[in-house]
């Protein structure tokens, strides 16, 4: 197709699926990990290193072993991935997850000029040459936004993996696909944190520094703009000096690491002034730590808080959470990740289960918000990306058992 640039592979991609966790794809993942770790350029990129770490042999083995051995799964065929333009290595995770499920993969690489993208592609390309069966099932492409090209790929796909939020999902879904095509859509999500003030207060210097670093990684590392980055900080046991201790530690961490752009500083300041007016009656006060941290202390939550309360680049809403009941009104299907510190996460999970909340897919400790894995947005991605081959024996055989394979 004209206008499409094949960074890896070609138009003649082999679309015949492999078994889920086929040895050949596991071997590729392991080699990919080794090659990434050995690469001088990759070693300077924390997010690419986390990819390398995830792909390492032991981790893949652990994930494979954790699956029910009696399940016979096969990839669905060709998966077409629309990767986010602005999260550098997400395209590679999306690729590896789907490849492990057994699919051939056509991946549109992010268009923004992140240095991680060409570096990861360079390493992957070199590694693939030693894995011909996977290589012929892999194509990495780039092309300018063009509905015709996207439509042509959509028409061929057995799975569409659509990252990039509501607008992208809506756009891609409007393009025709095979009737049986499986769409895995990652819509815009909202996340928050629940921190315990007393636990922070009691934390020693090292623990506090670690907490601040973890919180930084959940937020500033992606300009607080990832779906799993917390927007609201709910405080349990808010009285006492824990809260201010926490922010002071975060400020210290961010001051050493975050490159605040002038435009972001102005945007945060503008947003704070605007919201002082728009959220009149709900804003108790605004505090800023230089321009690194903006904190809007709220006395109540507005309607549709999940769409209205959106900060980026270090702009947080704070609210004293006396009891979990409030979450019932707040949480909708938009809610993805809860990061927690100093409280028992099972309380949160049980609350979601008992109250039948439509949102909250992940409950992870502060520092793990960005840890992408095979379970994401409430999907078991391996299952979503693959087919289960159901086998039934005739009645009366094998002791009258109808089914060998669990559903």
């Amino acid at each position, binding site marked *: 197709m004209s206008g499409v640039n094949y960074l890896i592979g070609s138009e003649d991609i082999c679309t015949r699926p492999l078994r889920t966790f086929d040895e050949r794809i596991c071997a590729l993942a392991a080699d990919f990990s080794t090659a990434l770790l050995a690469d001088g350029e990759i070693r300077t990129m924390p997010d690419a290193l986390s990819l390398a770490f995830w792909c390492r042999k032991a981790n893949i083995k652990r994930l494979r072993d954790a699956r029910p051995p009696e399940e016979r799964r096969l990839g669905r065929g060709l998966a077409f991935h*629309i*990767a*986010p*333009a*602005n*999260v*550098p290595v*997400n395209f590679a995770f999306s690729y590896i997850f789907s490849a492990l499920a057994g699919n051939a993969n056509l991946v549109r690489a*992010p*268009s*923004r000029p992140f240095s991680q993208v060409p570096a990861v592609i360079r390493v992957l390309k070199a590694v693939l040459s030693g894995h011909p069966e996977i290589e012929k099932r892999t194509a990495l492409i780039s092309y*300018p*936004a063009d509905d015709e090209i*996207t439509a042509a790929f959509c028409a061929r796909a057995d799975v569409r993996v659509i*990252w*990039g*939020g*509501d*607008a*992208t999902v809506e*756009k*891609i879904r409007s393009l025709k696909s095979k009737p049986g095509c499986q769409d895995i859509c*990652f819509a*815009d*999500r909202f996340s928050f944190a629940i921190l315990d003030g007393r636990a922070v207060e009691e934390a020693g210097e090292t623990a506090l520094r670690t907490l601040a670093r973890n919180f930084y990684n959940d937020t500033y590392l*992606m*300009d607080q*703009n*990832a*779906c799993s980055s917390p927007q609201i900080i709910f405080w349990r046991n808010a009285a006492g000096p824990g809260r201010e201790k926490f922010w002071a530690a975060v400020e210290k961490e961010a001051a050493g690491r975050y490159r*605040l*752009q*002038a*435009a*972001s*500083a*102005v*945007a945060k*300041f*503008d947003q*704070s*002034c*605007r919201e*002082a*007016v728009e959220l*009149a009656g709900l*804003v108790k*006060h*605004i505090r800023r730590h*230089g*321009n*690194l941290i903006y904190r809007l202390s709220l006395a109540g939550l507005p309607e549709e808080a999940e769409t209205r309360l959106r900060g*980026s*680049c270090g702009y947080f809403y704070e609210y004293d959470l006396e009891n979990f009941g409030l979450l019932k009104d707040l949480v909708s299907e938009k809610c993805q990740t809860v990061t927690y510190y100093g409280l028992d996460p099972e309380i949160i999970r049980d609350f979601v289960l008992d109250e039948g909340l439509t949102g909250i897919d992940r409950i992870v400790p502060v520092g793990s918000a960005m840890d992408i894995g095979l379970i994401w947005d409430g999907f078991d991605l391996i299952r979503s990306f693959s087919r289960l081959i159901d086998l039934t024996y005739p009645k009366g055989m094998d002791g009258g058992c109808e089914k060998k394979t669990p559903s």
Partner: protein
Amino acid sequence: MGFSLEDLAGTDPYGLDKNEKKKLYRRALSELTHSHYRRCPPYRLIVDAYGHDPEKIQDPEDQPMLPVRLFKELELLSVPHEEVVKVMTSSGSTGQAVSRIFLDRDNSRKQSRVLTRIINSFIGPKRLPLLILDTEMVKRDRAMFSARGAGIVGFSTFGLDTTYALDDHMNLKADRLKAFIDRHAGETVLMFGYTAIIWEHTLGEMEKAGLSFRLEDGILFHIGGWKKLRDQAVDALAYNEKVRSLFGRVRVHNYYGMAEQLGSVFVECEHGHMHCSIYSDVVVRRPEDFAVLGSGERGLLELLSLLPGSYPGHVLLTEDEGEIAGEDDCPCGRLGKYFKIHGRIKGAEIRGCSDTYERR
């Protein structure tokens, strides 16, 4: 109550030194903050949310500032709607929201008086033959009547025999231009226009047509963004040279002002320095924490103006970068701060999960 222009009527627009100006601004800006705090509820919400106490603030640098973008997002006025006589809108880039600035009679009058005092200090008290290097369309066409049209109307008060160099389709009218210059041979001629439009539609077209004049004494005031010109690597020096090569002896004054603070403009002197008049001041702030920066340090420009009475625009944080170049010591003799503008800050590149498909 409130700042009265009459207090400054007898003062040269560049006649207050550092200490005198500070004294004036402590009083005048505090009064403005008080007044807006009382009369503009959104302003009060912001001041309160940040915990500022209008009673305690003294130094101009401590006055609560508003980001200019806020005037595109909120309706900010300190007078009842029925007292508004004019709503100014910023031109803004295509597709972007525009600022809305609400002027009452008093605010509007202050703007034109102060503009007159400032411009007169450069051109003298008499009206001069005026050549507008633009099209008259901007005045007629309501859709185009934004800050651009208002600027032309405002400047026309300094002119006689006001003549437009461009026709309705932005084409240079060489005959009209020649006739105007012939009519006023030997006189001081005033010219006005927008920086980038002059460059493209007047200077560029004159050059193409091989047209040039030898004015004995011309004065050009031009205003507007430099982005287009910077992209073509045109700086002030090259700009001024081009003007002189095509028009003869012309004093070129670039000036700077925003729709949010019309009237109290900043004018570049013959030494290329952008000056604050007694009606306005500039503070440069560090983007990281908004700390006040000293001379020669580059940061965000905050503009102070004594004029905004009907809307809370007396202390504004702009999205322009610049630096203070000096104070009270320009060889031109004008007192007050002078500064450099480095243009709009770069848009932020933000990471995140959204917006993948359409953007490149």
